[in-house]
């Protein structure tokens, strides 16, 4: 389940900024780091800082955002060495010595400055059979899924992913093994493995196995540590390891130990 997003109060130290204070922002551009100076403001987010720089200091700065409220998953960047969603990250919570270092997300090709190409991320999402498979014929009636059933609870635990790519950037296994599907794609697959209406489970379990699949996870838990939605892809991957093992053992048993009729 998601952790509730805390409500800011006026006493929140991440809201107030000292008057006339400034922030030094180092941004990785195509030709190295470039430094900017920005005024500190109350409740200022990292995305506010990037937007201010782009609008008032350097219109050539490339970055990506859309909703600004933590729903769309577009604005993730590396902030002081850690992948974060910048629209919901307050400067006061992450600035070190009144400074910010901003880089594009790791493990993805850089398009320009802070904007990365998300195509490999979504290609893996597709490769992990991340789309619902209704089967050849639609069900006659609505499927009845009890809210407290173990399957529905497992789906609930991972369904709020916004595909921001933070977990993918945080994952060392993706860095080491470019074939690895990554935490977001595997988390999505796990929500569908627990969808009792889905009719593509065998193919999905096959797709998330192998050298690029769930078995390659080292359980470092970087994805779970960094997920801005407080999801736990590590546990989703552990579930996939169990499900794929069961399925493979069943197939192995059927192939080698089935009695001939």
């Amino acid at each position, binding site marked *: 389940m998601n952790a509730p997003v805390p409500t800011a109060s006026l006493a929140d130290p991440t809201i107030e900024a000292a008057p006339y204070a400034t922030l030094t922002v180092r941004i990785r551009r195509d030709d190295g780091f470039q430094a900017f100076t920005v005024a500190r403001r109350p409740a200022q987010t990292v995305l506010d800082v990037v937007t201010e720089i782009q609008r008032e200091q350097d219109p050539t700065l490339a970055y990506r955002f859309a909703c600004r409220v933590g729903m769309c998953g577009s604005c993730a960047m590396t902030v002081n060495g850690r992948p974060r969603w910048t629209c919901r990250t307050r400067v006061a919570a992450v600035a070190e010595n009144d400074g910010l270092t901003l880089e594009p997300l790791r493990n993805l090709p850089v398009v320009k400055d802070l904007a990365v190409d998300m195509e490999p991320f979504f290609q893996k999402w597709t490769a992990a059979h991340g789309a619902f498979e209704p089967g050849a014929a639609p069900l006659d009636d609505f499927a009845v899924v009890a809210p407290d059933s173990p399957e529905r609870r497992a789906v609930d635990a991972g369904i709020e992913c916004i595909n921001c790519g933070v977990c993918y950037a945080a994952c060392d296994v993706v860095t*080491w*093994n470019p074939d690895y599907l990554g935490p977001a794609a595997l988390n999505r697959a796990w929500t569908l493995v627990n969808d009792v209406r889905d009719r593509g489970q065998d193919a999905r379990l096959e797709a998330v*196995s*192998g050298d690029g699949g769930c*078995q*390659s996870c080292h359980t470092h838990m970087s994805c779970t540590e960094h997920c801005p939605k407080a999801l736990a892809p590590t546990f989703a991957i552990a579930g996939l*390891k169990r499900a794929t*093992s069961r399925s*493979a*053992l069943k197939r192995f048993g059927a192939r080698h130990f089935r009695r001939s009729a």
Partner: protein
Amino acid sequence: MSPLLYVAQRGTAVILAVAVAVHLGTILYAVRGGLTAGEILGRTQGNLAFFVFYNVFVVAAAIHAPIGLRSILREWTPWRGRSLDGAMLAVAALLLVLGLHAALAVYVA
């Protein structure tokens, strides 16, 4: 790695966790007691329990180690494909032959 390799590696890890503890315990016990190699071999000779235990240990290690080594090599080198799988089968065979040979030698010594 395939799910079956995964199950094989995790399953043998469970066996090895016990086997390594017994193996190390035995070494510490033997060294602490000041047993000589001759005395140790005198006790293990013809001891079927020791023979079976080390055979299980060797088989588990011969399955477990090459699967892990394969993953490490795939992550840290560009080595892929059938040549890698063949080399790991060779490592497994080497561990099996050397280990079973050693266990047999201790049994009949």
